[in-house]
């Protein structure tokens, strides 16, 4: 495995405050500082402090950027990053996402979880694992958590649509409820995502109080109840002590916590701060101790100026990209698309945007995998797309019969290539720059591109009201199911309407395979074909940023959907602070 995110550079001096003109690679920026300095080598365990050097008690306040209006993290309404960060403190999961983006067995809860044959998974639960009311965590909870997400067991449940649940046939308990055996109708390549921290276990015995779990209606009723009510239950290191809507979630140690490490803090508070620009000031004023904002030049530099605060950037699971809309008849021509993407200079884009505060960002060269993930292969460089080679782009156009290259482009049919629109989310300065830069590259080919923001990205995308769109995808921990959603001809998320029966077959094959290596190879082959078709141009992985007071121990960045609270139970203050 390649560990791209680990390629962080240690602190630069005061000269780093003023960025040099040549931005990238010059060592002008610092992505890891102070307590996070060891995150470069030791991404999964940095900022660790031995238990005897930790303070017993104390409070840590962590800023989250959205309110939690729905507590059911597997529901469509509750499937929000902030909600997911909160639930990890009190809901148990079979697998946790580590900072290096791998899934690791949650050894507090699980003895083991194994794929015993392509369609059977056996979960063995620790005997001491109990909910906060003393009820053992059992196969019933696994069965319930499956049913609430299954489109057949509970058609009324408005789920987030996490993949794979439709192939689950049954969950059977044995061994006094401490073993759960799940049977699938087809192999599911991303099987470790079942009951992982994004789709954790909900307590079946609480659910049973709010609906008859033998009927779909009853399951749906309990499903909604979990959404509406702040949790009174816990199977994790913390219990919810208090929830103030729009303000803060106060967590206290779970007295029945069965895990190896007991929480050291008296309270862990997640405070809702909806305006990210206010976070560094609140951190400086010690109103919060840990923040996790989207990085940008000023925030990174502002934090550098604060004494006794450390910060760290990682390359995350969101990746920026340009998308063509193939509804535009001119963009149906592969040669035009290839020429346009060839003229795009990704290095230049990075230098003008994220490179200003993170010298480690590199062009992303796969549509399917991130560099941190197993299977990442460079499928872009060979195509020449994103190289900024304008001469080559012009040659492609000339070869395809275009005229007026570099002045006013005319298609081989004799029709002038019309003006196009590149769109981005209003107020997103980085995407604005990416759009303006794109327009600049296209001008060199003789194509006029207007930059036009949208305040309703979802509708604009699904209505196809764009020629080029710049936005970001979130790479889910299930790359195979994810690829189907993004690129299948029939998928609702295939906004630009790329249609290719050949890749459709490959995507479907890769997602339902028992042989991960073969599936990976197939997916990479599909990636190569889609890249060659110049439909989506990946730009770069968006960096994530964590900053914390130096008194805080065991807190570290986690660029996955789990977020830094993946180890909330271990958060503590250093002794003597």
């Amino acid at each position, binding site marked *: 495995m390649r560990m791209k995110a680990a390629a962080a550079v240690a602190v630069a001096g005061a000269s780093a405050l003023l960025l040099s003109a040549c931005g990238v690679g010059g060592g002008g920026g610092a992505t890891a500082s102070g307590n996070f300095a060891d995150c470069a080598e030791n991404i999964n365990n940095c900022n660790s402090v031995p238990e005897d050097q930790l303070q017993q008690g104390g*409070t840590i*306040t962590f800023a989250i950027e959205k309110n939690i*209006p*729905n507590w059911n993290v597997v529901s*469509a*309404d509750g*499937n929000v990053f902030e909600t997911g960060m909160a639930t990890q403190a009190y809901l148990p999961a079979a697998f946790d996402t580590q900072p290096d983006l791998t899934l690791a067995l949650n050894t507090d809860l699980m003895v083991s979880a194994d794929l015993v044959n392509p369609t059977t998974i056996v979960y063995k639960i620790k005997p001491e694992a109990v909910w906060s009311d003393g009820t053992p965590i059992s196969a019933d909870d696994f069965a319930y958590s499956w049913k609430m997400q299954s*489109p057949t067991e509970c*058609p009324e449940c*408005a*789920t*987030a*649509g*996490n*993949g794979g649940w439709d192939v689950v046939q049954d969950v059977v308990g044995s061994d006094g409820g401490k073993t759960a055996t799940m049977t699938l109708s087809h192999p599911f390549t991303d099987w470790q995502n079942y009951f992982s921290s994004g789709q954790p276990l909900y307590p079946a015995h609480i659910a049973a109080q709010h609906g008859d779990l033998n009927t779909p209606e009853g399951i749906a009723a309990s499903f909604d109840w979990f*959404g*509406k009510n702040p949790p009174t239950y816990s199977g994790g290191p913390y219990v919810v002590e*208090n929830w*103030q*809507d*729009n*303000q*803060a979630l*106060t967590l206290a140690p779970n007295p029945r916590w069965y895990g190896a490490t007991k929480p050291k803090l008296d*309270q862990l*508070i997640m*405070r*809702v*701060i*909806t*305006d990210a620009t*206010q976070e560094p*000031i*609140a951190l*400086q*004023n*010690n*109103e*919060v101790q840990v923040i996790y904002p989207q990085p940008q030049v000023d925030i990174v530099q502002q934090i550098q100026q604060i004494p006794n605060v450390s910060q760290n950037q990682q390359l995350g699971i969101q990746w920026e990209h340009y998308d063509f809309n193939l509804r535009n008849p001119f963009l149906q021509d592969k040669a035009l698309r290839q020429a346009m993407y060839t003229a795009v200079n990704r290095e230049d884009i990075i230098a003008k945007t994220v490179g200003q505060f993170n010298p480690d960002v590199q062009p992303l060269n796969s549509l399917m995998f991130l560099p941190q993930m197993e299977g990442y292969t460079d499928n872009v460089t060979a195509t020449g797309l994103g190289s900024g080679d304008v001469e080559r782009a012009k040659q492609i156009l000339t070869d395809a019969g275009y005229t007026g290259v570099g002045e006013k482009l005319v298609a081989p049919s004799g029709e002038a290539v019309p003006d196009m629109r590149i769109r981005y989310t209003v107020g997103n300065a980085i995407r604005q720059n990416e759009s303006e830069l794109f327009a600049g590259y296209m001008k060199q080919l003789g194509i006029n591109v207007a930059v036009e923001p949208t*305040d*309703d*990205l*979802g*509708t604009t*995308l*699904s209505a196809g009201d764009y020629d080029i769109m710049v936005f970001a*995808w*979130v790479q*889910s921990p299930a790359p195979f*199911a*994810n690829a189907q*959603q993004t690129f299948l001809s029939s998928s*609702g*998320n295939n906004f630009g309407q790329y249609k290719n029966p050949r890749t459709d077959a490959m995507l479907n094959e890769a997602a339902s395979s028992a042989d991960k290596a073969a599936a990976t190879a197939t997916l990479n082959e599909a990636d190569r074909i889609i890249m060659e078709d110049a439909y989506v141009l990946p730009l770069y992985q968006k960096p994530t940023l964590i900053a914390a007071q130096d008194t805080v121990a065991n807190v570290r960045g986690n660029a996955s959907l789990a977020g830094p609270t993946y180890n909330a139970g271990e958060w503590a203050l250093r002794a003597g602070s």
Partner: protein
Amino acid sequence: MLLYAVRRIVISIPILLVSSFIVFWLGTLSGNPLTPLLLRNPPPPQSVLDAEAARLHLDEPLVPRYLAWLGGVFRGDFGPSVIATQDIGEELATRFWVTMRLIIVAMIVALVLAVLVGVYTAVKQYSKSDYAATFIGFLFLAMPSFWLAILLKQGGIDFNTIVGDQVIYTIGASSIPPPDGLLARVADVAGHMVLPTIALALISYAAWSRFTRASMLETLNSDYVRLARAKGLPRRTVMFRHALRTALIPLTTVTALDMATILGGAVITETVFQWRGLGDFLIESIRQFDTYAVTSWLLISATIVIVLNLVADLLYGVLDPRIRYA
């Protein structure tokens, strides 16, 4: 006078209804409330989207939707929010007091300052301090409020650094959890209020001190004050017993009329300082295309302002015996 009040209210109601319809209509045009769902990755199933559209009545025509909402308002139901678990009425009720606390304190601070400075500068017209006060007042009037607020925050942090203690806070209306002990709790709330109050008060202060000055000058210049002075009454008595009282009467109206502006100012202040008041709710609702919430918000705020205006008008009549209502 009662008749006058009743007539004004009766006239206000149909116009309020018409405008609420317009706001509602514009709200429905403004964007798709399903956007956050559409952008999810993985995407929620189509059935979920359909159910959500039905819950928000997106599938119904405009007029019946509006009428259903209006009917609900009279029963205290402000319609479904885009956020399924959120009750708009409840939200407005809790946030109302948060905003009122901010507004009332800021108004009192602004009024006291404005009257002091306004009277002083009127009495010392064309003195150096008059010019200085005028300039400072105009400077506040010319400053974008969030720009000022950002500077204030930085100032607050510098203050804390100098004092060496956390006295001033930049986020929220109180610490979570609140500190133990009554005194500590009062200090905590005060520490959270300082900056937003200043930010909100300064703008009203500038306008009101100008108004007080002009009004005071006019009174000082009036025949009856000059008569009182001519009769040999002491300057101080004339100033406070005769001039000041008369000069301050119009300020009540101005204060009430500015209510809408202050409520607008609170929108900015609450965003910068992360107070969960009405202003913050409005902005969140607009961003989420939450038509019912936005329309309800505007209806409530318009009602507050109308009632306050009416009170000010009636008060004006009581304070100033020359006014007669037809």
